[in-house]
């Protein structure tokens, strides 16, 4: 993937309006360097950047403590460390300025990911780069990232498959009579994720299993996210199994529904609502389709069929080096889908009993339309657990 992405980015910079770009967002740094460090977003007082001048090799500016880890994982082989004074962006801004002076003509245009750069850092950059013109390059980055390369697609399909397999793997252990707690199920989804080969990382790479009334919330028991509780699911209840997982820094968000024993007629009907909305979305998701129109079609179908689609949320979002990125299947996103885009489709349906039903699918946009990847089983019906062994 290294050569494919590096070439793509270098070519894109060459053809762009920028003499150089500098990115500070952890997701952008990973995208342009290949270093899948998971922790920088939780260190807002520490700064990392990749500076990439037209026709030059990229350089990562990194705190000394993280340098060797970065080099261990990155395809960027040049680094500069800076004397860190956490919370003060002077050191990193000066390091960028030094690189700019050596590689960019005076008054040259330098693109910055302004959607990821803190205000105080941006101001310090403006002062340090007063001989240059700073301009936002978020749109350029978005276009670059939103369409995946063939190798990115292969990796995303692998992650999606492993994620679905991990969820299904634990689902096969669930029995009505010998049911374990939510906490036990949650942890066992994580264990199955590791068994499938997904990476073990902290932060938001978590599982969550909710049952019965707890499925009525997105995050029951806050702030204990991704932990689960001592509740044991009961016969005929829904169980929701969720997993956010990564491999080599590319992500998948999975969610599946399980019924504790044969589903009731009400459960079947509610789940079929979710299936119906997925079908409507998939029919619409093809090259040239606007995200806004896809959302509208799904919403309209929900209204016509009396399905309680949870409003205020997008029904899908891109996935790549983050698990939530453009394009958004939102009533407000004008993006036209193109081959190479990847979306986690996730319409959330509220059942008559108040459960939030989810079925997160990884969808590739191809020349021929939508292609759902990674299904371990046919999810047109929920996982139905056995009564006993």
């Amino acid at each position, binding site marked *: 993937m290294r050569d494919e992405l590096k070439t793509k980015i270098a070519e894109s910079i060459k053809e762009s309006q920028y003499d150089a770009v500098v990115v500070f967002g952890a997701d952008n740094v990973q995208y342009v360097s290949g270093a899948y460090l998971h*922790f920088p977003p*939780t260190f807002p007082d520490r700064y990392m950047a990749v500076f990439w001048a037209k026709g030059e090799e990229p350089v990562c500016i990194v705190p000394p403590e993280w340098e060797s880890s970065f080099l261990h994982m990155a395809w960027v082989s040049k680094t500069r460390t800076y004397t860190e004074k956490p919370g003060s962006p002077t050191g990193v801004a000066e390091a960028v300025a030094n690189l700019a002076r050596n590689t960019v003509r005076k008054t040259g245009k330098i693109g910055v990911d302004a959607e*990821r750069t803190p205000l*105080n850092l941006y101001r310090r950059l403006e002062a340090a780069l007063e001989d240059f013109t700073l301009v936002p390059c978020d749109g350029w980055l978005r276009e670059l990232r939103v369409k995946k390369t063939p190798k990115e697609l292969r990796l995303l399909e692998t992650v999606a498959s492993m994620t679905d397999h991990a969820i299904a793997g634990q689902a096969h252990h669930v029995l009505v009579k010998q049911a374990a707690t939510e906490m036990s199920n949650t942890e066992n989804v994580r264990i199955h994720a590791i068994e499938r080969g997904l990476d073990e990382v902290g932060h938001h790479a978590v599982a969550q299993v909710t049952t019965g009334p707890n499925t009525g919330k997105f995050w029951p028991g806050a702030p204990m996210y991704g*932990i689960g509780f001592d509740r044991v699911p009961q016969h005929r209840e829904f169980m929701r199994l969720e997993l956010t997982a990564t491999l080599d820094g590319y992500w998948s968000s999975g969610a599946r529904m399980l019924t504790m024993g044969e589903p009731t007629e009400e459960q079947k009907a509610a789940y079929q609502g979710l299936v119906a909305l997925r079908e409507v979305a998939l029919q619409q998701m093809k090259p040239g389709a606007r995200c806004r129109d896809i959302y509208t079609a799904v919403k309209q179908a929900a209204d016509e069929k009396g399905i309680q689609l949870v409003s205020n949320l997008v029904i899908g979002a891109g996935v790549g080096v983050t698990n939530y990125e453009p394009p958004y299947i939102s009533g407000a996103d004008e993006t036209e889908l193109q081959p190479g885009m990847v979306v986690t489709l996730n319409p959330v349906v509220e059942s008559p009993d108040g459960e939030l039903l989810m079925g997160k699918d990884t969808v590739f946009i191809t020349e021929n339309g939508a292609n759902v990847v990674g299904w371990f089983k046919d999810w047109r019906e929920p996982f139905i657990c056995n009564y006993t062994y």
Partner: protein
Amino acid sequence: MMDQLEQKIKTEVEGCECDAVLAFGVDNFNYVTRTVLPFAEHYPTRRAVAVLPKEAASVVICPYDWSQAIKDQGWKGEIVAYDENEAVGIEAMVKSLEELLVSLGLDEKRLGLDGSRIMKALMDQLNIRFPRAEWQPVDPLLRDMRITKTPGEIGFIERACKQADRGIVYALMHLEGAAESPGYTIAEFTERIRVHVNENGASGVGLLNTAFGTDGQMYYTPQRGWVKSGELFRMDVSAHYMGYWANLGRMGVTGKPTAEQEKAYRENLRLKAAAHEMLKPGVAANEVYAHVARAAEKQAIGFWKEASIGHGVGASHYEPPYLNLSSSTELKPGMVIALDIYTYGPRQELIHKKDVYEITEEGNRKLSWYRSWDELYAVTGFRATH
């Protein structure tokens, strides 16, 4: 227990020069609302903001699926959940913020915000939407508020330390007797730390890293491969209890430690002891660093000079005060420090014993007291059924 913090925040906001304080940074949001958002740092295109007006009740604006979580954590103010089908990304939040500030009559007032956290593009949007508002960075105010903890906050950090330490010990118990046969993967061991930290009552895990053998030469490596005998290893975990963080590092060895490994560990403890005696009110952060540097030179112990030797913990796992050469912050009672000195093992492995201390009137008090870790934890034993 946290009422004191609520009152402290209210008093500080009322005393500042702004008509309202807006917290955009995830850590600042968590601090001023005393809630934890679900992994918000990792969703850069979704934003929450806490609005703390001087003369009205506080309000939070957030994505719809976070609103229930905030309410369930006891947030008493209004919650505005924005509609991500009306606008995309941060625009949806800005739209709701505009409506709120206009309704509160704050759209032409002096508004404080965290300039070290708000992104440049978002600031540009605010300047367009609120051309008459006067925006003022209030980072020093937030920093000063956060850097000294209330007893309630310290109590939560102490609990988090115990939960994290116990989580590590429980994971080690699983490793013992199983490292050789049937064998143990590094990923599974790391996951065992996470689950046992959670089982011990923590409300979340952040940084999670175990590094065996030469992987330990780096701050972080992917959690891959198998546990092998005779290796020095590092266990790093940050975890929170109700939003208050522990950040610990522990060392072990698979099998009986060699004399060289033990010597290396003792060297680390000696430098840590040098730092420890400086953790008291009135000492500047860079004096602690300089004292350790002098002790290292005197005793001919190599340490990782470029890294800092510690940092604060609280509503985040890494925050001021920073113990490095450039920080002149004076230690004061109520500050909480994660002391973190890296030295080197026989194979240049990074060794540390990261503990958390509260600065008290008399000096300091260890919050991560659950186990002394004064010796390398030796993972030994044979396979047995237990």
